[in-house]
């Protein structure tokens, strides 16, 4: 494996790992806050136990997310020193604010996890909310920094020099809003479906039904609202990408030739050598509409872009298909759920609906990772779009492949251990939180 590929793989792996943990860490606190609120209002012990059970999950995910995030703040320099040398002062603003938000989150989490029976109960609830809000703020800020790489702003690039740097303008670049919105909704949807699915599974197994049903309802509402709003946010993103990064849009849709009107391709097998797509379903004019809001508009294909600026088409296209496909499926499940809710059908009788939720446990995260691939791979060969190429940013140190192998092993084992720990937490729910077994509820 050559060093450049190794560096890219290691970065992809680290971000792909971190993204799951940080999403859970930023969404779960809101679920806890709802459950915690219900406990404070109704005095129903089940809600208290639920909050505690979830908070243990959050502690595990937060710690893993925090250390993998620490890793990333160094890895940017370890792998891409030439990028950081120039980009650091420009896109550093969201990172310095994120440092604050992350710090507040860690403090609030300390209060929340250790504050049971030690703090005023509403202050305790408030610290839980602070965990959620600052986590969400961190997420938005980090995505804003990534958005800058897609949509560089806040400096003038003159003769290879970065002049007139304005970090505030860099932070509020053109892509920050659409990317942050899409990411936040994705985080709520993916985490919501994963959590709801796990509890649905336990309901289907007839274990602690009351506990799991309450948990399911809280998570499902967040998940379904997120999944229904996501297509709207996706539309904003698509139009935005069409305007700013035509090469990325063309790769997402494997549009090799500029067309007017351009069809939307669903599925299909990309042949990067021949620049063709086989076996895709074509919806005439749909891409023109999605990209420019007009069924007859011209959509720029890869033929208008110099060959050495093409992103890898196959990966981007497949990842985009996976993301959209899953997103549509989750939106459908959400629709069914809400219809069911409005018609006041008891959930426990609809076992097939619960089974759908079980099926959706991994789907949200698969879509989220696929979306991340679209935005990152679709930006290649650039690390700063249009300004600096990724291969020019890589570290001069040889032997990165070994560090990639080490980190693959570390992340793989961490994933296994975290899964194992969650399995054990869930397995212990009857012992720890069953109403008939109060004595050991702590």
């Amino acid at each position, binding site marked *: 494996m050559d060093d450049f590929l190794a560096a890219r793989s290691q970065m992809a792996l680290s971000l792909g790992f971190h993204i799951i943990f940080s999403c859970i860490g930023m969404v779960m606190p809101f679920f806890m806050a709802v459950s915690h609120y219900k406990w404070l209002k109704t005095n129903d012990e089940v809600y208290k136990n639920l909050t505690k059970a979830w908070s243990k999950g959050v502690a595990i995910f937060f710690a893993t997310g925090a250390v993998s995030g620490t890793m990333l703040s160094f890895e940017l320099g370890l792998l891409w020193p030439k990028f950081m040398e120039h980009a650091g002062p420009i896109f550093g603003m969201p990172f*310095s604010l994120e440092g604050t938000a992350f710090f507040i989150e860690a403090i609030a989490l300390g209060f929340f996890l250790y504050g049971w029976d030690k703090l005023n109960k509403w202050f305790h609830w408030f610290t839980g909310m602070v965990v959620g809000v600052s986590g969400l703020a961190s997420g938005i800020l980090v995505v804003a920094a990534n958005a800058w790489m897609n949509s560089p702003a806040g400096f003038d690039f003159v003769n290879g020099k970065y002049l007139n740097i304005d970090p505030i303008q860099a932070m509020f670049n053109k892509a920050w809003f659409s990317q942050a919105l899409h990411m936040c909704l994705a985080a709520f949807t993916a985490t919501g479906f994963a959590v709801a699915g796990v509890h649905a599974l336990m309901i289907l197994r007839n274990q602690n039904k009351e506990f799991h049903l309450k948990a399911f309802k809280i998570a499902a509402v967040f998940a379904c609202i997120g999944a229904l709003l996501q297509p709207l946010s996706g539309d904003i993103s698509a139009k935005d990408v069409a305007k700013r990064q035509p090469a990325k849009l063309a790769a997402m849709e494997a549009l090799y030739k500029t067309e007017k009107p351009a069809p939307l391709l669903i599925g299909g097998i990309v042949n990067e050598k021949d620049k063709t797509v086989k076996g895709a379903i074509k919806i005439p004019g749909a891409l023109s509409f999605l990209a420019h809001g007009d069924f007859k508009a011209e959509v720029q294909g890869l033929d208008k872009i110099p060959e050495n600026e093409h992103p890898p088409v196959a990966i981007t296209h497949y990842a985009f298909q996976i993301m959209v496909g899953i997103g549509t499926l989750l939106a459908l499940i959400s629709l069914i759920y809400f219809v069911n809710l409005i018609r006041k059908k008891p959930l426990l009788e609809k076992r097939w609906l619960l089974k759908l939720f079980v099926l959706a446990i991994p789907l949200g995260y698969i879509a989220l990772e696929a979306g991340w691939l679209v935005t990152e791979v679709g930006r290649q060969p650039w690390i700063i779009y249009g300004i600096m190429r990724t291969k020019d940013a890589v570290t001069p140190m040889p032997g990165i492949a070994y560090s990639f192998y080490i980190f693959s092993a570390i992340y793989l084992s961490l994933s296994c251990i975290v899964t194992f720990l969650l399995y054990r937490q869930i397995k212990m729910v009857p012992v720890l939180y069953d109403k008939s077994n109060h004595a050991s509820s702590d």
Partner: protein
Amino acid sequence: MEYVVIAFLCLGILLYFLLGGADFGAGIIELFTSTKNRSRTRKTMYQAIGPVWEANHMWLIIAIVILFVGFPHIYTTMSVYLHIPLLIMLIGIIARGTAFVFRHYDAIKDDMHWLYNRIFRYSSFITPLFLGIIAGSVISGHIDTDANDFVSAYIYSWLNWFSVAVGLFTVALCGFLAAIYLIGETDSEQDKRRFIKKAEYMNIAAVIFGAMVFIAAQFDKIPLIDWVFKNTVGLTAIILASLSLILLWYLLIKGKTKVLRILAGFQVTMILLAISYAHFPNFIRLKNGGAISLFETLGPEKTIYSLGLALLLGSVLILPFLGYLFYKFQKKEE
């Protein structure tokens, strides 16, 4: 505004050293505790650092963000030439943080704990060792930006007597800080005596490794003695640190916990000041005799201004909240 940014950078590094260091130290103490007392040490430690450990490690993030936003050239030089020790330190941070949380949140207590404990203890030792090695390497003048071969560019930059001695010295200081901190966190008189003993051993170890740092500096031709003794601030700092050592031993024997903490923190601060003041504002010393100075590598004006503003704003939010966290979860004195 650049002074605000540099002040926060120094504060971040200092607080990470003190708080994060005490945190690592707790694991080092556990490593050097006899098997029969380990579970009790673990319990005290968990109560003491459980609520605050994640916040303690945020100081590292703050310092690193200041570096890459405000002083990108320093950040990238370290990233390139100290890639290997940084990587090992990061692996240590990952292993330690996760093992600490996993062993607490594993719902079932079984053989897995053997694994978590091992990982936690050894990474608590390795992480500050490499942190010290990195700190030593930055000032050792072994970073060779003109090197053409792998070994002199990426290995000798950190693998030298001085850096390793600083690493060991750091480990001893961390253990010392932790022992002092834990004395005040336990209820049992017996445990308290145990931690006092530990603090004494760690203090002796720190003095020995401290002496080794000076010897290694001579060996590697680093003008450490000049920095410390031919400079008024350095000399004052080292005299204060030495004098307070006497007071510290007196208080240790008396078992005064709160004053001890302040004194131990003060000592470590003085040591850091003595080592770093003489070559401030130079941050990295290079093999070719040059240096990378904080002022010369300062980022653009607008960046520094907004960074300083963000830090000031952040500290208004963070410091009271953090102070309350420490206050709320410290052991109440009867």
